[in-house]
């Protein structure tokens, strides 16, 4: 699949402080890409560089294969919808007037209002909206002019359970239509559910870019095993050269060499009864914590 957006060695500085440091990654077309990182890691700056709000000092940015400079940044931003930090809305306008302001066609407005379930309050002044309603309007404005790329910075902020569920459905259905999403959020469990790819940023540098199946696969390197005699099982497996460790009421077996059949055979042939087996799941939160701590260590060194 082709990439809609490519960052090549992009560097952005504020004074002497490098906010983005030689950053390279790619965004596949039609994918939902989760941008993850601690506060101040450079996520919002990446988004603002894509939107042309911030110029960058070094490196290159390619949109649909075309190099984007300050002269042609319009070609990218005109095909991009965004919700950055907070919804861009005027309190003296109604929701519907916002769509008129951005010259949306009636058919597009009807589609988006229907999609977001905003029909009941779209003609009310924005001052009467709750935080979640404003957030929904901000997302609707990002989607209104049929963009090819949608950038959402903390879209789940302030949304209740139902609204979060609706937003997840909307992002996934729009992605199926070919729209690419870059979503930044600290609600990692939610991001995990919608993302096809994950980019982890720390201190303006990329820690990793991976797909969700690959990320989950990282956790399948070890198994948690419960038997009727964990001590005996551990001893037996150690004798056969497996890497085994205690894990509370169970034992943990390293499976980086993919030897599941081998160690199961050893246990069964020695009449040890298997009560439970599961692979240690690597979720986004675990991966983020592990790699950020790792990159901090490297950075500090």
């Amino acid at each position: 699949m082709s990439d809609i957006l490519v960052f090549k060695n992009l560097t952005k500085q504020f004074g002497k402080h490098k906010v983005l440091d030689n950053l390279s990654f790619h965004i596949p077309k039609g994918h939902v890409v989760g941008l993850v990182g601690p506060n101040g890691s450079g996520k919002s700056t990446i988004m603002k560089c894509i939107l042309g709000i911030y110029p960058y000092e070094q490196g290159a940015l390619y949109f649909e294969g075309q190099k984007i400079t300050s002269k042609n940044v319009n070609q990218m931003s005109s095909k991009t919808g965004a919700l950055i930090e907070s919804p861009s809305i005027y309190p003296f306008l109604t929701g519907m007037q916002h769509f008129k302001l951005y010259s949306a066609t009636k058919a597009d407005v009807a589609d988006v209002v229907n999609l977001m379930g905003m029909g009941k309050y779209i003609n009310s002044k924005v001052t009467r909206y709750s935080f979640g309603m404003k957030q929904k309007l901000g997302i609707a404005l990002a989607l209104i002019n049929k963009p090819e790329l949608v950038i959402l910075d903390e879209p789940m902020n302030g949304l209740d359970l139902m609204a979060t569920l609706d937003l997840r459905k909307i992002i996934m259905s729009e992605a199926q239509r070919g729209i690419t999403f870059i979503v930044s959020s600290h609600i990692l469990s939610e991001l995990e559910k919608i993302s096809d790819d994950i980019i982890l940023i720390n201190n303006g540098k990329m820690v990793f870019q991976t797909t969700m199946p690959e990320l989950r696969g990282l956790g399948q390197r070890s198994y948690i095993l419960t038997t009727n005699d964990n001590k005996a099982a551990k001893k037996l497996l150690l004798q056969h050269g497996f890497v085994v460790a205690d894990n509370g009421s169970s034992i943990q077996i390293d499976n980086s060499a993919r030897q599941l059949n081998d160690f199961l055979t050893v246990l069964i042939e020695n009449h040890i009864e298997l009560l439970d087996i599961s692979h240690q799941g690597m979720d986004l939160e675990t991966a983020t914590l592990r790699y950020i701590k790792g990159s901090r260590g490297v950075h500090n060194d």
Partner: protein
Amino acid sequence: MIDLLKQEFFKLVHQKGILFSPLVLFGLMLFVGISSKHTGDLNYYTTQSFAGGEWLDILLIIASANIVTMEFEHGTIKHMIAQHNNRFLIYFTKMMVVSAYCVVLHGFMFIFTIVVKYISYGSTHPFGAIYDNNQTVMQNLMTFLFSNFFLVC
């Protein structure tokens, strides 16, 4: 740029403060008109639009400050820059809209001067009376309005 101008005018006409400012101007001019009744040179107040020029300047300063600061206050400036990618153009169109608003306020000021004059002074001190520079009160008023317009807008 046309898109940007349309957006700016759309925002301008939907702000209550902007819509009510001609009424504020009228109220202030009427106050000056009525309170000047017992002073000496009443034609002077008429030719000076009952201090409308000064009131208009204040209203315009408020409007032009608001038209820029509201974008930062509501965080909408990011959306504008992302959409148009030209900070100068955004600022320039805002100033164009303020200038247009200034023209409209001067129109209102002229009408209000006539209304306030009749409310405050009745038919005495007619607009056709000869006043400064051997010109009529109306000619003096027009000179004031145009000079104020070119000075402010």
